């Protein structure tokens, strides 16, 4: 039996050197040939290699068209269900099922599809990114053998992995590679719509609003045609955001109202929190702080997921701060800090610094330089230039009001420096 692809994938995943795996069983060069499916090893060698890797030889599945077709059908259906429902619990369930019930296929192509889909599910669940990095590395050794669809899955996994890890440039280059070949990839309509949906969000995050609009319209057409109303609702939220960012404020409100209407008509009440948040955000941009606060409070009330509340609590604090409502700022900042500790999620640490900064700024003793500097340091580390700019201004003003002009001017300079970077300006003449 040809099992090279299975051995290689598992060995790389376990970060084991060929010499270690081969020791006492065969020579490393013989193992290398096995892994490239250039030779078929004896049953004894197969068993010993699999045993050393902790693989169950009893799960080996020889080439058998019927079994393979059946498995592939089940695999692709699971994939469609998980991606379209975007239900984390379902993803976890499918991972468990596939890990326990999947044979080791001699058919290497099917095994690659299996590994690629399993990795996509793991990305959805989002546990143990180091493990996922190893899986991507293991798969990257087999790209030469991938067909067009597997290549799509591989690039998509890479793009999502890097996007999630905050390495935007790498993520974008993978998305771009997919886009360049999109017409050549045999994607079904639902998968194309999913891709358009994802890519539109990525473009918004990168500030490329007009391209985002183009893709979200395509996704909306599909979801609307297939009466996938939760997805239609989400498309309207995204359209609202694109309208807001292109300063078409009444149109933004119209899109959010449509989303809200769908919530009511189709009993999708759990989605109200995000819509209220965005209406609040729209009001904030329009300088209607009171109304913004009203919507942010409604949003917090409607949200069931605690981690989703963080962004709304932060926006609420900003509005209270703009109105100089000190007690409210402190109340919500303390609430946010408590929630941060309760959630115990390191990815939310920026919120901790935001909350701490505002709490300190509005406290009786006034801004603590230590807290401000810690926050600025944090945003420098994650290269969030906008917030370095903002908090440097706040600290400079604090020093200025306390007649510490030298320190004040140095923080104003720092604020300007990062303001330039954030606005992609090199010299003041370019402003």
């Amino acid at each position: 039996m040809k099992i090279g692809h299975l051995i290689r994938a598992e060995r790389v995943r376990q970060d084991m050197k060929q010499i270690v795996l081969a020791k006492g069983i065969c020579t490393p060069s013989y193992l290398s040939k096995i892994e490239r499916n250039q030779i078929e090893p004896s049953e004894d060698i197969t068993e010993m290699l699999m045993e050393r890797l902790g693989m169950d030889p009893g799960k080996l599945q020889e080439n058998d068209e019927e079994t393979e077709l059946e498995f592939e059908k089940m695999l692709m259906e699971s994939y469609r269900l998980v991606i379209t429902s975007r239900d984390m619990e379902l993803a976890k369930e499918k991972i468990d099922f596939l890990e326990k019930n999947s044979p080791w296929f001699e058919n290497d192509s099917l095994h690659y599809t299996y590994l690629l889909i399993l990795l996509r599910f793991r990305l959805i669940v989002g546990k143990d990114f180091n493990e996922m990095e190893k899986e991507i590395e293991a798969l990257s050794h087999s790209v030469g053998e991938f067909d067009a669809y597997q290549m799509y899955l591989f690039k998509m996994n890479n793009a999502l992995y890097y996007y999630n890890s905050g390495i935007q440039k790498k993520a974008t280059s993978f998305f771009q590679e997919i886009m360049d070949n999109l017409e050549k990839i045999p994607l079904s309509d639902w998968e194309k719509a999913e891709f358009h949906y994802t890519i539109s969000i990525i473009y918004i995050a990168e500030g490329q609003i007009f391209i985002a609009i183009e893709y979200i319209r395509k996704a909306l057409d599909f979801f609307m045609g297939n009466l996938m109303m939760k997805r239609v609702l989400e498309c309207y939220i995204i359209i609202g955001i694109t309208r807001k960012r292109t300063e078409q404020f009444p149109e933004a409100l119209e899109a959010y109202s449509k989303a809200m209407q769908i919530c009511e008509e189709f009993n999708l009440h759990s989605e109200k929190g995000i819509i209220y948040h965005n209406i609040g955000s729209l009001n904030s941009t329009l300088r209607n702080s009171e109304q913004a606060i009203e919507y942010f409070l409604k949003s917090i009330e409607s949200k069931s997921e605690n981690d989703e509340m963080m962004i709304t609590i932060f926006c609420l604090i900003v509005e209270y701060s703009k109105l100089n409502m000190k007690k409210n700022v402190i109340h919500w900042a303390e609430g946010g800090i408590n929630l941060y500790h309760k959630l115990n999620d390191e990815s939310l640490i920026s919120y901790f610094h935001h909350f701490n900064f505002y709490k300190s700024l509005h406290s009786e003793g006034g801004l603590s330089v230590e807290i401000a500097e810690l926050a600025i340091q944090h945003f420098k580390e994650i290269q969030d230039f906008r917030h370095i700019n903002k908090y440097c201004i706040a600290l400079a003003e604090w020093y200025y009001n306390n007649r510490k002009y030298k320190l004040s001017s140095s923080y104003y300079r720092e604020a300007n420096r990062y303001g330039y970077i954030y606005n992609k300006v090199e010299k003041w003449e370019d402003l």
Partner: protein
Amino acid sequence: MKKIVMAFLLIVVLGLAAQANTASANNSGADQLPRVFKTFSYTIQD
């Protein structure tokens, strides 16, 4: 005395420039995008 006046003027200029940078970006109101899955951070702020 001259030094203090100079420092004061410098701060005013720097302060105005820093604030102009922020204002031009029209940043208020962080939007919340729907997310594809839990770890995929779709909460963005301009």
